[in-house]
Each structure stands twice: as structure tokens, then as C-alpha cells.
């Protein structure tokens, strides 16, 4: 993975930059010693590391504004960071950057049940947003598997999804407003407690912009009343084709489950060995969850199991109680952990049209043989967001590169069948250079034009999202000498 040459001029001015930052922040909020900046050298894409020039941990929007204004004046790139759980290298620093972490900004600013929103500082973790309202039976719907750790800041930047987004949508569908600081320090309010934009949908383009348009410090999030109950059903099938057809039939029948999760045999085997959830050994397993009152759940599950029976399932297990429901989810929820136990793995995130599932799984199987690397598939079947896990040995010379090459082929396949490179993890550095496969030059140019407007000097998280060759001319900004 290539990163641009760090700006030597900026690095040579480190002293002065750090001093200026110290002028506007409390002493413990500016970190420059390399033994400490190392803690921020990577996100969850740990194969790539680079300590930043300095780290700042502001506590208020005003402090964020001061930091950005100074960095803007000094021509210093800024990499925003939430909790550093990005799987795409979105929060990877460069040697010439100030890493701006919002981890100290965790407050709940306003809770409004009448209008069904909370306003939080964006360093707050996803799960603790729900934590702040669940005693009153409300919740924040987007639920990435990393929700214990990841921050709302990163969720907004990546437009993160989760297992329940089939019904509730992803971050962008649950975000009502933000306080954002532009690279020059300007503080702006976009959206709020009302439901639509008066002008252009700037909020819509900010969400998912991977920290390249501004630093989001506060967010107004839609909260929902908890459903009366939820219950999953587990079904096993002889082939992924049949499982795919079953998903499609469920959806066509007008039932809209909150989640439809899919696992293939390698994944089932690993989860079983790890979590002993009692999964059947078969080619494809679906977990389908519905919500409502007990009678409503019965009615929906009745419809779903009737459809499933038409597809000759090898196993059909309806949860009778919370305990059984827990066991059905246990394996799925430990899928990543299970994989981590047996191997190093790389988690992909392409999306495909649901109808292409059998073909794509077959091709992945073939490629797995060609590359000599195992793959396990677990994914959100209702919306076609796949997570193939490629297994490799990081300690063996050349395996990471082989794994990346295999991953790139899978993602190109996703694009080829009408899907996309990333459904919820974002582009970051990981998929940056594959963007040419999905978008023409004009398509990329239009996206970069948006960055030009928000961040004319291209100082915010500049080496991400766009292929380096496409963004080169913009990133090479003349920096004033001292």
C-alpha cells in the first residue's frame, strides 16, 4: 500500500506547530512524544502503521476549531479519529499529520423523548448512545458489531451499518444533524431536530465522507422506542443457492425481518468449534429475526417457516425462549472471534445484488483454490452486504500480499455483478486504488469536486478514499516556508 511522501517542510516545523497547539489546548491534550503517539499509529487495519507528527485530544467544539484553524494556517494535514476501529485504514496517520482524536468528547448534551432524538458529542461510543436511553425503553438503531468500541464520529464518517439495518437503515438514515468544524476552523450547524434539509442535503454528503469534509463534533441522532420483543429462527440448507432463493421468497412475501444473516460451511464449522452453539453442519445457514408482540412474532415466524419448508431445510429451529434465541445468535456473534482463533484473517465488505449470491459464492470458492487461501463467508443476506473472511498467515512472507490480491479480486467481482466495493466499512486506504474499478474518471472528479468545496487545500485526511493518481494534483499544496 502506497502512501504519499510526507511533507518535509511540515515535519521540520514540528516544534512551532506543537507550541501553537499547546497555546490553545490544555497541556495533557497535546501529545508529541513518539513513545506516546505510537498508540495512535494505526486503526483496526493493523497491517499499516505510521505514528503521526502529533496527537491532539480536544474536549470541546471550540478547541477543535482552534486546532483546525492553526493546522490550516500552518498547512498541516489533519487525520480525524474516533475510536480507531476502522477496518479500512480510514484513521491511519501520516508522518506529517496532526491526529485529531475526539475520544474525550463523550457527553450526552440533550435527550428528548417527545421529539425522539439525542444530541451527543461524537466521541461517545455507539453502544453507550443506546445506553443513555435504554432505561426509558429507547434505543439507537445502527448496531455495528464493533459497537462496544466504535464512536459515533467514526460511524458518521463511515456511514456504518449493522445487523439490524435491513429494517432500521444505516447511520445516514438515523442522523438528523451535526455540528461540524470546517478545516479553516469555521463551526457550522447542519440539520437538527427537524426532518429534512432546507437546501442541499449537505448532511447526506457529510455522512460517509470518511473525515475528509470536516470534523464532526456533535450529532443529533434519531432514537426509537424498543419493540415489544424479538425472536430469531435458524434454518440450514443444502446449498447456498437454496438459501438465497429462500431469502428472496421471504422478502417477496412481504415479511420484513429486522435481520437476515447468512453463514457458509467454513464459517459454521469455525463458529461451532469456537462457540459450540449447536449449529447444524450444512452448506448454508440463515438466521432470521423478527420483532413485535409475542403474537405478532408468531404470525411472522409462521409465514417465514412456511416459506422455508418449501425449500427443504435440513434444519429449522425456532427460538422458544430468550435462552434459545441467545444460542442461535451466539455462533454468529462470535464469528469474527472464532476466525481470529484459528487464523489471521482479512474481512472484506463488498455488496452484491442478492440475486447474484449463488454465482458469487461459487466464484469465491474457485478463487480460493486458485490463490490457495481459505475463505469463510458470513453476511447480511437481506441487503447483499458480504463479509468474506480470507484466512492467511501474517507471519509467512508474502501471504499478506497474496491475501490482498485475492481480496481485490473478490471486490472486483462484486462490482462486476452490479454491486460495490464496500457496503459499510468504507474505502479508507484499503480500497482506495480499486475505486477506478467502480468509478470512471468523471465520477471520481465529481466526488473530489465536493472535497474541493469543503476543504480547498485538501488538508483533511487527504490520502484516503481517492486513488492517489487521481488526487495527486490536489494534494500537492504549496506550503509556506517558515
Amino acid at each position: 500500500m502506497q502512501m504519499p511522501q510526507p511533507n518535509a517542510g511540515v515535519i521540520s516545523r514540528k516544534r512551532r506547530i506543537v507550541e501553537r497547539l499547546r497555546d490553545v489546548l490544555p497541556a495533557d491534550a497535546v501529545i508529541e512524544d513518539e513513545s506516546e503517539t505510537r498508540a495512535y499509529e494505526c486503526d483496526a487495519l493493523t497491517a499499516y502503521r505510521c505514528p503521526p507528527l502529533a496527537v491532539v485530544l480536544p474536549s470541546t467544539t471550540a478547541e477543535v476549531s482552534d486546532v483546525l484553524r492553526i493546522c490550516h494556517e500552518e498547512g498541516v494535514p489533519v487525520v480525524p479519529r474516533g475510536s480507531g476501529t476502522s477496518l479500512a485504514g480510514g484513521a491511519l496517520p501520516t508522518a506529517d499529520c496532526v491526529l485529531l482524536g475526539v475520544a474525550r468528547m463523550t457527553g450526552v448534551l440533550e435527550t428528548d423523548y417527545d421529539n425522539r432524538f439525542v444530541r451527543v458529542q461524537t466521541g461517545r461510543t455507539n453502544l453507550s448512545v443506546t445506553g443513555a436511553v435504554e432505561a426509558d425503553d429507547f434505543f439507537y438503531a445502527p448496531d455495528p458489531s464493533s459497537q462496544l468500541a466504535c464512536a459515533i464520529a467514526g460511524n458518521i464518517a463511515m456511514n456504518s451499518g449493522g445487523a439490524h439495518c435491513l429494517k432500521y437503515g444505516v447511520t445516514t438514515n438515523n442522523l438528523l444533524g451535526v455540528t461540524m468544524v470546517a478545516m479553516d476552523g469555521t463551526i457550522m450547524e447542519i440539520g437538527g431536530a427537524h426532518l429534512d434539509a432546507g437546501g442541499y442535503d449537505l448532511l447526506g454528503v457529510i455522512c460517509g465522507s470518511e473525515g475528509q469534509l470536516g470534523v464532526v463534533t456533535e450529532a443529533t441522532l434519531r432514537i426509537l422506542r424498543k419493540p415489544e420483543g424479538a425472536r430469531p429462527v435458524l434454518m440450514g440448507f443444502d446449498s447456498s443457492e437454496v438459501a438465497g432463493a429462500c431469502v428472496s421468497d421471504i422478502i417477496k412475501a412481504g415479511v420484513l425481518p429486522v435481520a437476515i444473516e447468512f453463514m457458509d460451511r467454513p464459517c459454521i464449522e469455525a463458529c461451532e468449534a469456537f462457540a459450540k452453539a449447536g449449529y447444524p453442519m450444512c452448506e448454508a445457514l440463515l438466521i432470521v429475526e423478527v420483532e413485535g408482540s409475542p403474537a405478532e412474532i408468531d404470525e411472522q415466524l409462521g409465514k417465514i417457516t412456511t416459506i422455508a419448508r418449501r425449500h427443504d431445510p435440513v434444519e429449522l429451529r425456532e427460538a422458544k425462549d430468550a435462552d434459545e434465541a441467545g444460542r442461535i445468535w451466539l455462533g454468529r456473534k462470535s464469528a469474527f472471534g472464532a476466525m481470529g482463533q484459528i487464523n489471521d484473517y482479512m474481512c472484506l465488505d463488498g455488496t452484491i445484488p442478492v440475486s447474484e449470491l449463488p454465482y458469487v459464492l461459487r466464484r469465491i470458492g474457485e478463487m480460493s483454490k486458485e490463490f490457495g487461501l481459505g475463505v469463510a463467508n458470513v453476511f447480511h443476506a437481506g441487503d447483499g452486504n458480504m463479509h468474506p473472511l480470507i484466512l492467511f498467515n501474517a507471519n509467512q512472507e508474502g501471504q499478506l500480499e497474496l491475501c490482498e490480491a485475492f481480496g481485490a479480486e473478490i471486490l472486483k467481482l462484486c462490482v462486476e455483478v452490479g454491486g460495490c466495493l464496500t457496503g459499510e466499512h468504507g474505502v479508507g486506504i484499503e480500497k482506495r486504488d480499486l475505486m477506478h474499478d467502480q468509478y470512471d474518471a468523471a465520477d471520481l472528479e465529481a466526488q473530489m469536486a465536493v472535497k474541493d468545496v469543503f476543504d480547498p487545500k485538501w488538508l483533511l485526511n487527504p490520502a484516503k478514499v481517492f486513488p492517489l493518481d487521481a488526487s495527486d494534483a490536489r494534494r500537492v499544496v504549496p506550503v509556506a516556508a517558515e
Partner: protein
Amino acid sequence: MRVESEAELAEAVAGATGPLTIRGGGTRGLGASQGAVLETGGLSGITLYEPGALTVVVRAGTPLDEIEQALAAENQRLAFEPMDHRPLLGTNGTPTIGGVVAANVSGPRRIQAGACRDFMLGVRFVDGSGTVIKNGGRVMKNVTGYDLVKLMTGSRGTLGVLTEVSLKVLPRPETQACVVLDGLGDEAAVAAMARALGSPFEVTGAAHFPRGADGQPVTMLRIEGFEKSVSYRAGRLRDMFGGQAVRVDDDPDSVAASWLAVRDVQALAGREGDVWRISCKPSDGPALAARLSAEAHHFDWGGGLIWALLPVGTDARARLGEFRGHATRVRGTGDAPALQPEPGPLAALSDGLRTRFDPRGILNPGLMTA
């Protein structure tokens, strides 16, 4: 000028020597645009529909009717419930999907299911220089690059001319019912709607009319889904409001007709005056309505959307004063701009975007600023 293909459209825009008014069906009466008319009706047809994947891809000039019929045949629908502006604006013509998307037209179900923008999966458009650009795609989860799909939705053709859009669709529910509360004042009605929307019973519409059909206040809460579930939830909601004047309309046809009237703002159709639409925090609704002291007003979106009829030429914003949200003049003319002016920093971003996507300023000039 009427174009029949994306390539023709790109050529027409590239070769334009002056402003263009982009027209789909011409039913939305979007402000006073100027210049040669560019009709998109020739770009018509459903290019892909996969009911099992809940996705449809259509050319921008496709009549909305044609799409809704195709979806209905598979028991699906556009869940954001786009309003038909014809009754309110007194326009004729055939609404197209491009017009719906360009204005982010979203009906009563917006509070639960989302707006048009929430169902948009992908766009193809021609920018002001005549370049064809695509963004998003046809899959439900996609974070590949910036979300220009949302930026284009609601941009009223000022950033580009839509040629094709992909949308997420949803199952059409088996039936619907309406829980009706009688006699509530604005404050009490908005509070009641907040209670209902904060319940687990999935209310998909919450509207209040200070003067309903019989001249008395009426508050409506809609429930949709499978039959047993609908009657269960309607019953639970009715019980929640025990002690008040509450009844359940469980005749699906009558419920459908009531909500069609809400969707299309039929209450203000054909009446003399300007029509304003105010988007606000729901609990601010009653106070803002009081400040408006309109000839007639009602609330949708649980109070977060106010429709108001004001004397011709009135500037609603002058009456509203400072508030969080925005006011749009949907019908009528006057000195006040139709759209709420944006605060400085946002206006600068909007101007910047317009200049980048339409450097010559020829696409529906003024539509996003006047």
C-alpha cells in the same frame, strides 16, 4: 427541447448557450425558472426491477404511475409516499420519478420509513458541463466514495439533470387502520402524537387538523401491516388514549382515502392564498403555528411539518421569527425567497457546490436560491 437518451441530453446541455429549465412532468411548479425548456419525458422506462432484492432502477422521465403500478403488481411500493402536487398547485401533466427525486418529495410516512433520499440507492446525471456522472448503484448498502446520491436528491436539478435513479422499495402491507382522536387543541394533539410515535406500535403517519372535515379538530394515527398485527396495535393505541374521545377506523379503503388527503394536502387545494410548508422540531409546531396565525393550517409528521395557508404575498418568515428549521413557499409568489436562506457558512458551501457542478449557472438557475 425533448431528449430521448442520456447521450442526447448530455449533448443538449453541453451545447446550451443559455439557461435551461429542466422539466419532467411539470407538475411540481418548482419556482420561476428561466430559459429554454429541456424535457426529460423521453428518458422513460423501468430498466430493472428485482422484487426479491427490493430494488428498482428507472429512467428519470418515467411516469410515477407506471412505476407504482409495476410495484403494486408485486405487492410492493415506494414507501416514502410521494405527494401528488397537482391538486394543491393546480398543475396538469404526468408526474415523473425525476421530479420526485429532484424535490425529495416525501409524504406522511417520512416519520417512520424515511424520506425519498433514504430510499435512493443510485443516480446517473448530466452536470452543467454536459458530463455524464454516476454515483451509488443498485445495492442497498453502499459506502463506496461520497454519497452524491443524497446531494442530488432534493437539489432541484441545479447540480445536474437526473437521467436514471435506483430506489429501494418495500412490501405493501396487508392492511391499515387509523386511530382517531377527536377534539384536541394543537398542543394536546402534538403531545398525543409524540406519545404514539414514542410507543412500540410503529405508527406510520401522525397528522392533526385543527378543523377536520366536520369543522372539529381531528388527530390521526396510522398503523400498517399484517391484519392481526394491525388490529392488535390499533387496540393498544386506543387503550393508551383511554379516557379521551378515541375511535379506530379499520376500513382500509377509508383509511387510504384519509391519508391520501393528508399526503396531497387536499385541505388547502383550491383555496385562495399562498401555501407555506414549515419543517421544525415537532414540539415547536404548535407555537410556530400560533405565530403564523394562518387562514388555515395543519400538522403532519407528528407536528414537525406545518402546512399553512397565508394571504397572498405574506412573508411567513417574518411572522415566524427565529426558529430551528425552515419555511418554504410552495404556492404563490412574493418578494420573500421561496426557500429559506441558509446561514452564511452553509450558503457558501451550497454556492461552491453549484459553481463546481454547473460552472455556467445554466441548470434551473435560481431554483435553489429564490
